[in-house]
Every structure is written in C-alpha cells, then in structure tokens.
C-alpha cells in the first residue's frame, strides 16, 4: 500500500512540473543554481584580509625610527654636576674643595669616623677580605651576618631580624614578599620612594591617604569594610596592610603610631613601619618610634630600617616575629638574589650597635641639639621649617613659591651655595620629579648630628638666616 501511495505522489509531482508556467521553472532553476553556488563558494569575509608581503614588511622595518635610548640632558641640569667630596664625609667635610661643617649627611650619631667602628671593620677585613662572592644561600652567609641579625633582633627586642645588602632594597623587597596582586595596601601620601617602588613591585591595590590624617585613613578602611561585606568570599583572602614611616624622610614629621595601632586592630590590617630615619634616633634607647610612643613592638607586624644613617654602615634590616620575618628568607627578592653584605660592613654595624647600647645618653643629646637648631631657625623671613622639633632631619621650604618649581629649586640652590661658601654644607632634598607619586615641594634638608657643637649649630642657623635674607629679599 505504501509503495502505491508513493508512486501516486511521484506521478502528481511530474504532472505539476508539466503544468507549471515556464517563468516559474526558470526562476526555480536559477534559485537551485544559486544555492549550489552558495554551497560551494568560500565563506564570506567581514573585511578583505591583506597580509603584508615580505617586501612591505621590509619597508616597514626600514621605515621605523626609534626614539633615542635616552633624551639629551642639558649641561646645566641641576642634578647633573654632583658635588665632589674629597676625603671622608664626616663632621668636617671638604665639598668642592671648600672645608665645611657637615649639615647634610645622615650621620646622626657621628659613627662614620668613629675609631672603634673603623677598628672593628678592619679586623673583619683582615679576616674575611672585602666581598662575599655569593648570595646568602650559596656560601654567602658569614658568621658575622648571623651575629648582626642576632644583635639587631636583641636590640629591637623582637624575635628575628634579617639583613639586606642595600638600604633601598630592604623595604622595596619586603613589601612584595607579603603583599600580592589583589591585596590592599593603605599608604601615606608622603611615603618615601623605596616604599613606592615596593608597592609597585607588589602589584597590589594601593590606597593613598592624606599625610598623617587618621580620619582619612579610617574613611578608606571603612569604605573597604563596606566593600568586604558585599563580597565576603573575596574579603577572606584579601590581605590588608598599612605602610607608614616612623619619621618621614620627605616631611620630617612623625607618624601617629598609637592611633594607627588602634585602627590596625579595629580593621584587621597589618602595619609595616619604615624606620630609616627614626631607628637609632627616637626613644630612650634609640629603638625608634615604637619606643618613643611606648608601644609594644609586637603590635607592629614588620619594622624595616636601613643601616646607612644612624649606624653609618651600608645595608638594611627588617625585624619582627619569626612567623613574619622568616618568610623573606625565601621570598625577599633583594635577599635571595643579591650578594650578601660585605662582612666588614656587618662588623661595623655590630660595633655601632655596641656603642649605641653603651651610651644610651647619646639619643637625648641628639634631641637637645635638634631642638636647639629648630628653635634658632624659626622666624626666617621667606623660609619655613617643616618637620618635628626632635627630628634630626627636617626641611626648609620657601614660604611662598615663585610659581615655578624650577625657579624655587634655583633659589634654594643659591642659598645652599652661599651657605657652602660660608662653610656650612647643606643640600637640597633630591627627587625624581616625574617618578614621585606625590612630589614634595622643593626644600633644603638640614641634618643634625651629635658631633655638631652648640656653637656650630648657632652659627649654622645664623648663616642660613643671613643668606636667606640676602637671597630672598
């Protein structure tokens, strides 16, 4: 039955073909041909692709002109021609052939040319030679390094310390060892360049708060808290850090540590504290800003400082609890991948620590001197003093900017040069203007050391006052 029905359909179809008008057949034929063409033609392109020919490529390569490797530097660039110091950069310094009293090097405790420090370094040199010829991992760990780490940990009353061979690399390596992509770092706008580079290397999310403004910090922390509540899963793995300096290199001001510690526990963020200026300066025993405020050092997760200021050696260190610090021994880039600190520099740092421990009075002497010059420098027309009265490094800024940074720098340089002529060695604080996140205004940085006598401090203040008057008025 089925076959009969099929045959009938076929007959009907043939009949329909005969009956259909010619134009219809022609149209259908064209359509069928069209379908076949579509089936066999290539897929259409959105745009015509035209690969470059070898010749065209060669022409492009020929055509390309790169920028020069470095742009030209004009011969009178303010930073091109360095001051040349002949002989040791200690209390009495010879700058560009002129004998001066040094108010520019961070030799706060005058340990740079201390005979005991030199003697200790010399003993080390005679035993170990100069270089270490290797990173810490590969036979570059000397017994002196272990001693120094031990001594620093004891001095700071922490569990562990770790030393780096370069001050700048210390905090710049420590931050990315902990803070990774996706973590959040709250950092003061005035933070020094080493911190900025560390943050950049960490690729974390960076939140800047106004300099020493705890309300602003709390606002950011609160905002983050609200953000966290929206996405609790993410919040559980997002580490939060607050990075601050003890005494700020760029402003000479101190951080409000007690408030920071309160915020730390309230919002569960860890504190990293950079103490390059405050270590060996603040506090009864020179332990820095924690001792200054009487805050337990355990409340701070990580303290970093360099050994290039108070200790007058080279290198830097981090200290804190072993749980935190030990991690850097495998993750601190500047620690793992760099040659270790020359043992003579480590030995010098140990001796400097000895001297600091034996004469705790030295810190109050330094503070007295700071206060003295700070007071003497008040009320100079045209210049303002920026920084704490107990900070051994503070800034002199123009009261009124001329409107252009270049002009300001020139004016200040003139003051520095005149002071140099009158045997007071000063320097402007130098910055990479295009690289700084928040560029501080131009300033002269005055550094106080224990070696400066009261008479020298008075003379320096007087000289600056007179020169500023002559230059600015």
């Amino acid at each position, binding site marked *: 039955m089925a076959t009969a029905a099929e045959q009938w359909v076929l007959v009907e179809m043939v009949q329909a073909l005969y009956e259909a008008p010619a134009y219809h057949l022609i149209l259908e034929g064209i359509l069928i041909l069209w379908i076949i063409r579509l089936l066999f033609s290539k897929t259409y392109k959105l745009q015509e692709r035209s690969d470059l020919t070898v010749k065209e490529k060669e022409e492009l390569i020929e055509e390309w002109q790169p920028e020069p490797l470095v742009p030209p530097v004009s011969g009178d660039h303010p930073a*091109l021609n360095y001051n040349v110091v002949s002989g040791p950069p200690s209390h009495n310094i010879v*700058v560009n052939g002129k004998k001066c009293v040094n108010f520019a090097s961070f030799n706060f405790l005058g340990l740079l040319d201390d005979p005991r420090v030199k003697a200790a370094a010399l003993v080390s040199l005679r035993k170990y030679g100069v270089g270490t010829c290797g990173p810490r991992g590969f036979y570059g760990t000397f017994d002196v390094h272990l001693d120094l780490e031990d001594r620093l940990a004891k001095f700071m009353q922490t569990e562990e310390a770790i030393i780096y061979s370069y001050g700048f690399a210390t905090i710049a390596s420590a931050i990315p060892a902990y803070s990774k992509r996706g973590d959040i770092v709250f950092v003061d706008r005035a933070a020094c360049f080493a911190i900025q580079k560390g943050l950049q290397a960490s690729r974390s999310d960076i939140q800047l708060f106004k300099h020493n403004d705890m309300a602003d910090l709390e606002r950011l922390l609160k905002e983050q808290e609200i953000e966290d509540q929206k996405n609790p899963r993410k919040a559980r793995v997002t580490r939060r850090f607050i990075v601050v300096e003890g005494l700020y290199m760029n402003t000479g001001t101190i951080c409000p540590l007690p408030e920071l510690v309160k915020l730390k526990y309230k919002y569960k963020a860890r504190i990293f504290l950079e103490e390059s200026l405050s270590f060996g300066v603040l506090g009864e025993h020179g332990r820095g800003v924690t001792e200054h405020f009487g805050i337990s050092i355990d409340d701070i997760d990580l303290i970093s400082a360099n050994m290039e200021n108070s200790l007058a050696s080279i290198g830097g260190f981090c200290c804190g609890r072993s749980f935190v610090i030990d991690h850097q021994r495998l993750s601190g880039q*500047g620690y793992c991948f760099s040659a270790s600190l020359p043992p003579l520099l480590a030995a010098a740092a140990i001796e400097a620590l000895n001297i600091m421990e034996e004469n705790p009075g030295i810190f109050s002497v330094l503070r007295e001197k700071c206060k003295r010059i700070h007071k003497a420098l008040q009320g100079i027309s045209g210049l303002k003093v920026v920084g704490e009265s107990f900070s051994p490094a503070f800034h002199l800024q123009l009261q009124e900017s001329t409107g252009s940074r270049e002009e300001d720098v020139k004016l200040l340089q003139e003051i520095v040069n005149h002071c140099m002529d009158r045997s007071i060695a000063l320097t402007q604080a130098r910055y990479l203007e295009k690289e700084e996140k928040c560029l501080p205004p131009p300033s002269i940085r005055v550094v106080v050391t224990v070696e400066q006598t009261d008479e020298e401090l008075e003379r320096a203040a007087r000289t600056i006052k007179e020169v500023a008057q002559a230059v600015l008025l």
Partner: protein
Amino acid sequence: METPKYVCTGAFSVSSVASCARGQRGSAPELPFSPAAHISSVAFPSLQVHHVTQNGGLYKKPFNEAFEETPMLVAVLTYVGYGVLTLFGYLRDFLRHWRIEKCHHATERKEQQDFVSLYQDFENFYTRNLYMRIRDNWNRPICSVPGARVDIMERQSHDYNWSFKYTGNIIKGVINMGSYNYLGFARNTGSCQEAAAKVLEEYGVGVCSTRQEIGNLDKHEELEKLVASFLGVEAAMAYGMGFATNSMNIPALVGKGCLILSDELNHASLVLGARLSGATIRIFKHNNMQSLEKLLKDAIVYGQPRTRRPWKKILILVEGIYSMEGSIVRLPEVIALKKKYKAYLYLDEAHSIGALGPTGRGVVDYFGLDPEDVDVMMGTFTKSFGASGGYIGGKKELIDYLRTHSHSAVYATSLSPPVVEQIVTSMKCIMGQDGTTLGKECIQQLAENTRYFRRRLKEMGFIIYGNEDSPVVPLMLYMPAKIGAFGREMLKRNIGVVVVGFPATPIIESRARFCLSAAHTKEILDTALKEIDEVGDLLQLKYSRHRLVPLLDRPFDETTYEETED
C-alpha cells in the same frame, strides 16, 4: 605541586616532557646546542633563509654549547619522585592538622588569629614538605675568606631541619666550588686588601648620603673613570648593589610605549627592573636567535597591540653568562639583529665580566667585538672583583642621563669607600696597571681550569650543561632526592657545592653547580673531580649517553610569545 599533570600522556617523547617542564616557567623547550654539531651550530642547515643565524662568519672561533637531552627514564622517575613527595606532603599536613605530628613552624600571634592569613597555604606547601627536607644544603654559614678553600661552621638539626644548632666545630679547608670568586680576588691579604684597609682607616665604612646629595666622594669619581676605561666605553656609573643596578636603572631607560625583549632565563633583577619600568615585556627563548628575530620583526611590523602605534623603542635584555645554565649569550648574532632592527641592547655581565675574554673584559672581549655596539653595558663587582655593587657603562649621553635620572643616584646611599678601593685595585690588577702580570695569569688560569674541569666531568659521563668556556658548570641531578644526597655527600668529602632545584630551575632539571676560580689549583680540582666521580657512581648520576641532538635539527616552534602589560 601538580607534578603528575605534567607527565604527558600518549606517545611519550622526551622532548615533550622537557617542554612540559619548561611550561612551568611559561616558555617552550630549551633548544640544546651541541658540540657534535659545532659546525652546524653556526651554520643553519635548513633551507629557510635566516639572515643572521646562518651567518657563521660572525663567529671567530667555534661556539660549543651542549644541553644534552634528559633521558626518558630519568624524566619519568623524576616525576614519580615529585609525586611521592607530594603525596607524603599531603599526608604529613593531614597529620599536622590533627595534631598527630608535632608542628614546628612559627605560628601567627594569638591576637591576630582572626586577621586574613598572611600566607597562602599552597605557597608554603613546597617549603614545608619539600624544601625543609633538604634545607641543610643551603645557607651554610662560613667563617673565613670565600677563597679556594673555606671554613664552614658545623650545624646540626634535631627536628628535621626546622631549626639548626651550631656545634661550635668548624669544618676546615672545605674545597669551595660554590662562590663566584672567578678571578680569585676574594683574599684577606695582598695589595687589594692593603689598599682597602688604608681607605677604610681614612674614610670609614659608610657614606650616609646619596650621590646626588652629598655622597659623591672623590673615590667614586675615580672608580667610574677606571671602569669606563676598563670597559672601553665613554663613561660609566657605579651603584651600591648589583641587583639594584638592574632593577633601579631599567625603569629610567624605558617606559610605557616601549618594548622589552627579554631572554626567558634572565635573572630576577632584570625581570623586576623590566616590570617596574611599565614597558611591555615579551620573552624570547633562551639564547634562540630565531625566536628573537621573529619578535623583533613582528614588533616593528605590527606595532603596539590595539593602538597599532609604532613602539617608541625596543630594548633587548640579555646576560653574558647565564648563571644557572652555564651558557654564553650568542652576542655576535644579537648585535647583528639589534643593528638590523634598530633596537637597543642591554647586556648584563654579572657573571662574565672578568671571567671571560683574553683580557677579562667580559663577553664582548670573548667574541672580539666592539663595546660601542652594546648600548648599555651592565655588570657587577661582586664576583670577579671580590667586592660588591654594580655598574653601567656606555655613551656619555646615557651616563649623563642616568646621573640625573637613575633611582639609585637620587635615593640610595652610595658605595662604601673601602669596597670602592677593592674594586679599583683589583681592576687595575686585571688591566696590568699595577705593574704585574698577576691579572693576566689569573685570567689564563681560570680559562684553563674551566676547560679542564668541564672536559673531565664529561669524560666521566655526567650531563653537563653550557658553553665549554663558561666557568659556571651545571651538573644535572634531575631527581629531587639526589639534590640533598649530592650536597651532603660532597660536604662529607670536604667539598662545598651549590645544588639547585625548583623553582630556580625547571621542575625536572635539578642540578649541582660548580663555579670555577683562578684560585683553584690543579691539585684542588683533581681532588674535587675524584670525589665527584665517586659520588656520581654512588648516586648513579652518570646519565650521559652522548646522544646529542644538534640544536638546529629541532623544529623551531612558533608558539606565541608571552606578553605582560602592567
């Protein structure tokens, strides 16, 4: 620790294993160079025309580098080894979690238990369960000059390497095959040390200021003039740390809109510097000129991604000697490429300065090239000069720019004066300016030691990587258990060696590394070789079958490059 994943399935070829391992570092298989094919290593056998790679005339002498393939069985066993370690790691972590096994590592403060955990758990899995087992092979403290022989402080651990106790004993006179003391300037006597001592007494050790402020001493100026004349460049600048020389100066040279072409095995400092610069980074295969040329060509033809603007400039980052592979950069070809494509060349000579070339001027001297062809000559003082710090040399415009824009010059304390003096005196000695031939003899001695030591190890049947003239000699161990065993057995025999494993190397290519020195006498080397031979038999390390695949027989794999844009 997902090792089993990398054991490729199906038809199991050794090269595919190698490529999986390389994949760990985000890159493709190493192309081995072969001594058997040293003629073809400079002449390209395929029909494809490659302008430079084909040009054997660029080399004045045979360029012999060998990277023997990993035997398949060894590769399989290595993966099995890591698999077992990982399983036991999980087991131990389980036991620690339920307090069945005592937990040795430091813990978070009680007050901060509710903070977000400071470490990712996985990050520490490797440290806790693999590294900790063999931790005694690293950070061995020494208490003498790191010369040809060294005194090591004996230490013991009673808690499986979680902590060490010093016994107070000193292992004396250990043969030092680990320090980068290439020319033997790590000494505590002699003219260099006398000079350094004198400067130390006059200047003290610190500087307490930066170069731009008031830390530019006459000593630094003297050093920089000397470095420039040593390198044969117009000017040079010295910095306080080798690592920072790279990481703080590359950002001054390139920035957004610039392209960095970096060798896949470049040192961490170069990688960090490149990242901090903000430039786009593309990686080419280790010492592979085809890969480099392809990247250069594509970069110029296609310009920046998305915007299609042409790149502002292209900087090629290479090292003279690669410290983990022992290979020497194919500098003549790199320079030809750089000239052809108008790119700039940054050459890091951390390991090669002093250690290579007939006059110790590094890799440029080794190939007999003109230092003017290298735009940025970077190197360190840590190794051959027995001091610390780094330098950059080049045209006067470059150095003037760095003096004003280098991060180091503005923000970092300058070099310590006694260290400067050590560099000055040792450099003068190498240049023969001290009136002796001592420097020249040291250079010769090192070259002889290198050839001898490498030849003997190869004869013994070890797989040795790298160039026959490179004083860095990697000996392949492969299996994780052998890393610890080799280090310990060698120390037992009074020889200090460096052993390295993942993450410093690809996961299956763990190795021991010897650094030769001019201070090694023939007698010392023979003693070391004898012991290495014995330990090699004991641990069955003589893997070599001398079945070498010539470099250029391997297909050039056109995988896409890795690109990072930050």
